[in-house]
């Protein structure tokens, strides 16, 4: 019960954080396309709960909740999305792409790329016998990317400690998954590559945690990689303000809200005897914390032009001495 309550608290934090970000996007304080996470919180919380701090998480263009669940600070994630210097990537990455090395967290805005990258993290872990695993989260849309195929195969032939997590939220931008995937389940594709296959209810945080544990243990024993399909539902649009009516019936969303992870977990907690007042107080405390966070974030500085060129590359050894005053930079 205590673990479930902790999961609930984390999911509630992600829900309220996501809503806060949507609000900031509408206020034009988040500048790029913003991809809401509402309804998928059990995947972030359940899967990240199974990771050790030094395990690597590779995320997507919808990364903010994965990042927080992996241990990145709310301050660093929020101010990154707001383009401030205190952000994970110094405000140069934004809402879709940033890196938090100390949290072993990487994400990027090109769909499908991270599967290829995951094989490299996995290879280094295996070769160094570090005991780490690399978890690579991607969407149902990425499962049709060429890199999905190449990376699944490479990871499988080399038995790399990589947990591939297909977070199936039913839509690739505006296209419903049933229209672009002919097989019954995306996880079935694992069979074609010879790797372990797991399908899990991605709206059930405890099930997600268990599935992740199973996969991670296989990987740590050298029996990876594993492909997990976590079935969930994208309650909001692909981005804030997308023309939702072009691809789904609003009634579908109303129905999905009945089964979203917070509703389900809350019911389970209350059924188990949890005091509703406690959950109310939890929500108020999180809201207060996020309000304070936002006040702080708005005051943070933006990067300067110097910051924009600080780390394009590492200066070549003795550059001006060897190459003269006109030495060019990388």
């Amino acid at each position: 019960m205590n673990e479930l309550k902790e999961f609930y608290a984390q999911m509630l934090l992600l829900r309220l954080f996501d809503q806060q970000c949507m609000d900031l996007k509408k206020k034009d304080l988040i500048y790029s396309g913003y991809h809401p996470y509402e309804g998928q919180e059990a995947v972030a919380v359940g899967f990240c709960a199974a990771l050790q701090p030094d395990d690597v998480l590779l995320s997507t263009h919808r990364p903010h909740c994965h990042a927080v669940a992996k241990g990145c600070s709310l301050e660093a994630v929020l101010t990154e999305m707001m383009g401030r210097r205190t952000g994970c990537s110094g405000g140069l990455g934004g809402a879709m792409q940033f890196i938090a090395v100390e949290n072993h967290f990487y994400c990027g805005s090109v769909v499908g790329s991270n599967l290829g990258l995951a094989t490299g993290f996995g290879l280094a872990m295996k070769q160094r016998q570090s005991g780490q695993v690399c978890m690579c989260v991607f969407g149902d849309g990425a499962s049709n990317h060429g890199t999905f195929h190449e990376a699944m195969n490479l990871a499988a032939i080399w038995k790399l400690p990589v947990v591939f997590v297909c977070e199936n939220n039913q839509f690739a931008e505006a296209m419903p998954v049933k229209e672009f995937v002919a097989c019954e389940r995306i996880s079935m594709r694992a069979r074609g590559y010879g790797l372990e296959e797991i399908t899990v209810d991605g709206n059930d945080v405890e099930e997600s945690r268990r599935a992740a544990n199973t996969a991670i243990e296989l990987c740590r024993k050298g029996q990876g990689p594993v492909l997990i399909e976590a079935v969930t539902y994208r309650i909001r649009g692909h981005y804030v303000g997308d023309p939702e009516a072009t691809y789904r019936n609003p009634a579908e969303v109303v129905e999905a809200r009945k089964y979203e992870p917070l509703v389900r977990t809350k019911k389970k907690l209350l059924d188990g005897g949890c005091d509703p007042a406690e959950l109310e107080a939890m929500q108020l405390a999180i809201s207060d914390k996020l309000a304070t966070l936002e006040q702080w974030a708005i005051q943070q500085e933006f990067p300067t032009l110097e910051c924009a060129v600080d780390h394009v590359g590492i200066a070549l050894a003795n550059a001006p001495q060897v190459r003269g005053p006109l030495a060019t930079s990388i």
Partner: protein
Amino acid sequence: MPTVTFGEAIRQAYEEEMTRDKDVFLIGEDVGRWGSLYRSSRGLLEKFGTDQLKDTPISEAALAGCGVGAAAMGMRPIVEIMYIDFISIAMDQIVNHAAKWHQLSNGRVKLPIVFKTQGGAGRRNSSQHSQSLENWFVNIPGLITVMPSTPYDVKGLLKSAIRDDNPVMFIEHKSLYFDKGEVPAEEYLIPLGLADVKRSGEDLTIIATSWMVTFALKAAALLQQEGISCEVIDPRTLWPLDQQTLITSVQKTGLCMVVTEAPAEGGWSGEASAVVHEHCFGALKKPVRRHCGMRTGIPYGPSLEFDCIPSVNSIAAAARDLLGKPAAH
């Protein structure tokens, strides 16, 4: 000094660096059993094993991504893309990730990775196996682009590329692997970003890259017999560009020609030309001449292929024209 082939010089660089640092590994199609298409890693699988020589499926995107991920973990991968034409499959990993992660991590992620490939014409492989695509990478901030032309240079530059903490595009030429040259027995490095004056001269500066350096040197020898003295410069690293060596030469000669196998339009030859114009305008007697590959897919077959790229004779003819000398008889 021992004389070895270009391919053997590469093999020596691999051997020395893999011995020095167990984190150095070569990953690519047929780099192990075959020892690479042009045998530049032959015998190394037996010596270093599969940890350092990784044969991969034909999956350029995955293996480029694999290199980036492994480099982020502190390893030093050399990702071999068998033909530069196939690098189109791997571009996402190189351009969107390898070239961006150092910046996106506030300088904390280092990517000591070499993308090693070969391009160019001369072996009758037609338009999907003969391209000169180096220009793509010069225009990407965060990448170093190297094009060696001699056995000595390829060894010294490859060792430096492997030791550098930036992603390096290391582009060889398929027609150079069997060229021979002197390579010292003792260890040496050649700094990245440093041009080399391959031949000193007074009348004209020829800036040439890769295979074209060997053509330019032969043209210069030909022209010498006609009393024309050419200085031939090999930038070796296309970017970061050693501007000073180019400028010093053109300020002396007052005439400049840029020779590349890649088509001129939108290419590095224009960059080199612009650098010379910007810094040597007062010294230039005529505008910089670009003498480059034709704007076409490299055609198949014995003669057309060579007709579409600069040759010794065409370089010499262009030089005479630039100098206002009569054509050779």
